[in-house]
């Protein structure tokens, strides 16, 4: 599903964010991406959705060479992926309802009779049934984060990528969200979650991909947050 072959990413200014990373994440896997702040986790994720392009090496997602996607094929490619961005990236002038509905609308589902139940149910799942008509800046940090999660889920993507999705959530809500992600993974969605939440990683014992200073330093099938 996700394959990186000797991928490096150097940002303008010569900052090396990823350094010769090769990895393979098969379909239906649940993988954690861990590493200290500034290790290159978000950069890794940006490469997967072509928010950035690798400086060298190749990135395959869904059997497509992401770096060589034609401009017009990018939207269709991205619609098969759901992403929770570290900085949420909610649309400021759209309500919560419209933000969550957006990935479906992009798919061509424009009838609110069809959209409404799906939006409602996914907001219910993340614990936000009451703020449908508010704008993102009228929500608390954790509420915004959950809207971002809801938006990533709503269209049932093949791959779900979450960048630090519990950073603004209290432990209980964080656990509920993680349970939800596990359930979604169990139904067949490939999961990649960049996180600093040691508790969650240590408890779940799933695959752990550990990067540090842009290098892959550990890749364990049933790993913990810190190296054993």
């Amino acid at each position, binding site marked *: 599903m996700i394959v990186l072959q000797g991928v490096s990413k150097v940002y303008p200014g010569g900052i090396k964010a990823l350094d010769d990373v090769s990895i393979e994440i098969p379909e239906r896997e649940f993988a954690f991406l861990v590493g200290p702040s500034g290790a290159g986790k978000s950069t890794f994720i940006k490469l997967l959705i072509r928010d950035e392009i690798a400086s060298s090496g190749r990135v395959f997602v869904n059997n497509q060479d992401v770096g060589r996607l034609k401009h017009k094929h990018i939207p269709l490619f991205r*619609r098969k992926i759901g992403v929770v961005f570290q900085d949420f*990236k909610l649309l400021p002038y*759209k309500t919560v309802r419209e933000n969550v509905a957006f*990935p479906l609308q992009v798919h061509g589902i424009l009838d609110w009779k069809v959209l409404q139940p799906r939006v409602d149910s996914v907001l219910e799942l993340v614990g936000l049934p009451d703020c449908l008509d508010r704008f993102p800046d009228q929500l608390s940090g954790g509420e915004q984060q959950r809207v971002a999660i809801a938006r990533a889920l709503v269209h049932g993507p093949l791959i779900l990528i979450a960048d630090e999705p519990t950073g603004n959530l209290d432990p209980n809500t964080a656990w509920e969200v993680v349970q939800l992600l596990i359930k979604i993974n169990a139904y067949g969605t490939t999961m990649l979650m960049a996180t600093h939440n040691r508790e969650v990683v240590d408890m779940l014992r799933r695959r752990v991909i550990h990067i540090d200073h842009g290098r892959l330093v550990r890749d364990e099938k049933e790993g913990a947050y810190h190296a054993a």
Partner: protein
Amino acid sequence: MRPRMLLFALQSALAHCRRNKLMSTFSVTTTTVMLLMLGCFIVVITSLNVTLRALESKIDVVAYVKDQADPAQVQNLRDSLSQNADVESVRYVDKDTALARMRQTLGDKAQLLSQIKGNPLPASLEIQLRFASSAPALADQLRQEAAIEEVDYKQDVVGRLLAITSFLRLTGLIIVAGLGAITLFIIINTTRIALFSRRQEIEIMKLVGATDWFVRWPFIFEGTFLGLLGAVATVILIAAGYQPMLTHLSGLLTFLPLAFDPQFLPKLLLSLLAGGALIGGAGSYISVRRFLDT
């Protein structure tokens, strides 16, 4: 599916305008001010053109008839002139009328005429032209006629008048074209600046899988809508100000044949509406493209 998508884009556009009233107001006022300026100049320059045409039409060509000319020939000439498309009217002034006029013109110096034997003044054809520009050709043509002694049409004055009027017409055209280009540029530039603050929104939409067109349409509709709003305000202002302005101007310029085309106003207002909407939409289209490419 397609019309559905456009409807969705329209709804999104209207929702954004409603939610971001301050910014929408700024865009609309810029459009209104620029279109109002353009519209006023178009009104003035169009009126000027009508006035110029009126000025030009006042040009006379006078053909002096030889005393020994054949009256039938002269009559023929009159008839053919009457049928000439360039000619507004022809009038035959016989020798006696000419003398009577001269007497009148001289007023209390008319006793000078009594010292002159006979009537030295020739009969003439006074030809009023539709357009001053046809004067030289007609004069040349008349000079060929056997019955005509001499042709007089104030060559100098007509030349100047034509030079002035065609210069004024050209100037008017340049001003309107220039102001049109400036209006276009300012509205598009304003749209660019306004959309600059929304480049993150555009980026987010693309990251969530929107196609370029899915992103674009709401912006195009928004630009069209705001442009249309600005044009509506302009149209209201011009429609309300047109009559009072005309009356005032006519009062100020009693000696100038200020003429206005009654069918012109609706045409202008419709053009402004279409123009506002078009520029607004096109401006958004162009501006969004810049942020889509990245």
